[in-house]
């Protein structure tokens, strides 16, 4: 027994530093896990912790430690960016144009397409179509075919634009004169005014720096005026 006790004491002397190390280790471990020593920058999730919002695909990496939590997106500007039309072929460029496929047509004068007002109704398109048809008939009688083929495209387009504007302008001024005489139809007036504005814009865009042959223009106008009195076709 004595021997055993002394042996135990001897062993105890040896194990004392080990016990101290274990105590310190336990103390350190319990200290680190204590809530009173919390030092995280993020709040600990509570018992009713909501599920993080879904992160849309491609929205970047989530914040470390909290998947799906990201800074709120800046509000988008209400001003939409309007891009200029590109000269690149579109997605359906290889397809047959629908208008051509379906037999659509555009009014032309001497093969130059004449623009219609962009937001026009069917009735609004009629004055331009009528003017283009009348001027095209007159111009084809006056201008020889070989002269037409020799005419530069810029000159031809300017001539077509000037002729259509001449027609719409003539009718506008006729309507204004009729208004002075007591004849006034607001809807007819509005249509011709819209057609005249479109024709004037087309003329301005087509004729900048393009010289005019007044004799040729005058001959076509005379032929057109003669058609006006010739009656309905």
């Amino acid at each position: 027994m004595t021997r055993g006790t002394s042996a135990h004491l001897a062993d105890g002397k040896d194990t004392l530093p080990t016990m101290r190390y274990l105590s310190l280790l336990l103390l350190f471990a319990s200290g680190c896990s204590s809530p009173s020593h919390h030092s995280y920058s993020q709040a600990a999730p509570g018992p009713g912790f909501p599920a993080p919002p879904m992160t849309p695909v491609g929205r970047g990496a989530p914040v470390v430690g909290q998947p799906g939590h990201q800074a709120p997106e800046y509000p988008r500007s209400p001003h939409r960016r309007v891009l200029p039309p590109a000269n690149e072929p579109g997605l359906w460029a290889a397809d047959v144009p629908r208008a051509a496929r379906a037999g659509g047509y555009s009014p032309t004068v001497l093969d130059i397409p004449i623009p219609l007002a962009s937001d026009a109704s069917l009735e609004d398109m009629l004055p331009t179509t009528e003017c283009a048809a009348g001027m095209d008939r007159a111009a084809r009688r006056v201008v020889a075919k070989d002269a037409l083929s020799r005419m530069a495209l810029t000159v031809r387009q300017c001539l077509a634009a000037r002729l259509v504007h001449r027609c719409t302008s003539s009718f506008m001024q006729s309507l204004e004169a009729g208004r002075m005489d007591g004849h006034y139809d607001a809807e007819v007036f509005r249509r011709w005014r819209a057609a005249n504005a479109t024709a004037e814009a087309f003329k301005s865009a087509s004729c900048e720096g393009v010289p005019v042959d007044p004799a040729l223009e005058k001959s076509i106008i005379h032929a057109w005026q003669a058609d006006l009195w010739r009656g309905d076709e």
Partner: protein
Amino acid sequence: MSELVSQAAADAEQERSIREWLDGMTPDQRRALIDASNRRLAQLKAKILAEIHAEGITEQEWIARQHAAYAVAQAGLKGPDNNAPQASIDESSKE
């Protein structure tokens, strides 16, 4: 071609010519001119509506075709660079 003039000179001449033309008409003649024009527009509208009806499309679709046809025709006249039109129109492209 005869003598060429500037746009401004041609515009001034056009304005004078229209005024002269209108002044040469009596009010009844001007009225008859407008009435004749209105009849032609009514005929044109009836023709277009018949076409719309025959094709089974709406007016809006017909209008959209006009704009598309214009864009196609303009693109046919000009190359990729809209500021550089062709020197002449291919005769074979004419209808």
